[in-house]
């Protein structure tokens, strides 16, 4: 059985000793192939590239710099964030996703007929700052997420898979003009019915 191409290359390049392939000693075809490979390598190696002038390199660097300046600074991507931060953000996003899903479920179950007489208005509830823990005055996890996501635009979020097709974020950001108007009308109707 003849030597395979990778074996012939190894022998021709000298990374494999001919003595380790006993077949070569008895096969003129394989020996000829090894010789031809060596000859072609030698012929190819003999082809030079003219060295450009030293002045060319300065000119070249200047051209690249000009093109790069026109591009603006490269933006740091989600993937170049420190590796410790990425898992923290992932966990936070997962928690938020679960919270949104549960909230949606509660909303859909809570469709009850409106009472004929609206209850008397109650005293307004003091607004709650979600970023402030009443115990410590600061929720570090939410603060971290807020800080990390403060400069994350929609494109970055989409690349990171945070606004996947089917998500609320994806749906809202992909409505066309008439859908947005319809959504606005429905919301106004609901607000008018609830007396808000």
């Amino acid at each position, binding site marked *: 059985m003849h030597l395979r191409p*990778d074996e012939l290359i190894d022998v021709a390049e000298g990374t494999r000793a001919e003595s380790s392939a006993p077949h070569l000693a008895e096969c003129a075809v394989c020996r000829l192939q090894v010789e031809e490979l060596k000859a072609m390598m030698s012929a*190819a190696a003999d082809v030079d*590239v003219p060295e450009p002038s030293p002045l060319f390199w300065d000119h070249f660097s200047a051209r690249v710099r000009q093109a790069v300046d026109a591009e603006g600074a490269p933006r740091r991507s989600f993937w170049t964030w420190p590796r410790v931060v990425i898992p923290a953000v992932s966990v936070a996003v997962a928690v938020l996703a679960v919270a949104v899903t549960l909230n949606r479920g509660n909303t859909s179950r809570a469709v009850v007929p409106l009472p004929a007489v609206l209850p008397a208005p109650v005293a307004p509830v003091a607004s709650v700052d979600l970023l402030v823990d009443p115990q410590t005055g600061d929720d570090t996890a939410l603060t971290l997420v807020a800080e990390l996501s403060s400069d994350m635009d929609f494109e970055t979020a989409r690349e990171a898979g945070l606004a996947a097709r089917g998500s609320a974020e994806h749906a809202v950001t992909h409505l066309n003009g008439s859908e947005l108007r319809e959504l606005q009308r429905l919301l106004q109707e609901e607000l008018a019915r609830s007396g808000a």
Partner: protein
Amino acid sequence: MASSLTWTLPGTWPQRTVTQSTQPMRPAERGLADLDERALVEACLSGQTSAFDVIVERHRRSVYLLCYRFVSNHEDASDLSQDVFLRAYRGLRSFRGQSSLATWLYRIGVNVCLNRVSAKKLLSESIEDRQFVDEKAESAPDRLLKDERGARVRAAIAQLPRKQRATLVLRMYHEMSHQEIADVLGSSVGAVKANFFHALSNLKKMLGGEVL
């Protein structure tokens, strides 16, 4: 007889050593020049575009030579090299340091060259376009013969299928290991060796016995 004559292009320099920029470096640039690849990339991503100048200076010659091996003329090699660095700059944020910066640049370079070469038929420089510089003793006929042989080999390489050509260029002229070539081309070591074998066999078929 030693090869002591140098053919140069109009506007090129008959010299083999790489020379550094003739412009003196500013102190901040001297600091950048001491940084390793990863730190340079980080500096670029932090907005220090001068860090990219250092990357260009370190790799411009090898990128240029790679491009020249594909297109066989100075003008196109120069344009392609610039394109390689511009693409590298745009994609710098995707460089994760899993391979060396050189390997990453080669990968971009091979893609740029193969795309350009397949989109446009490039002309090799003719022998007449070169200037003859008689540095030592090799006779003009010897040099002419060698140059004609080189032109035939280059033309044959240009006709190889894309992966075979890329493999041969990286192996023969950039002394990359089979594993490094596999990383650049996104294939296995076995496939690289097979491509190299077929590239050399096809060269033999195209050139016959004329260069042996």
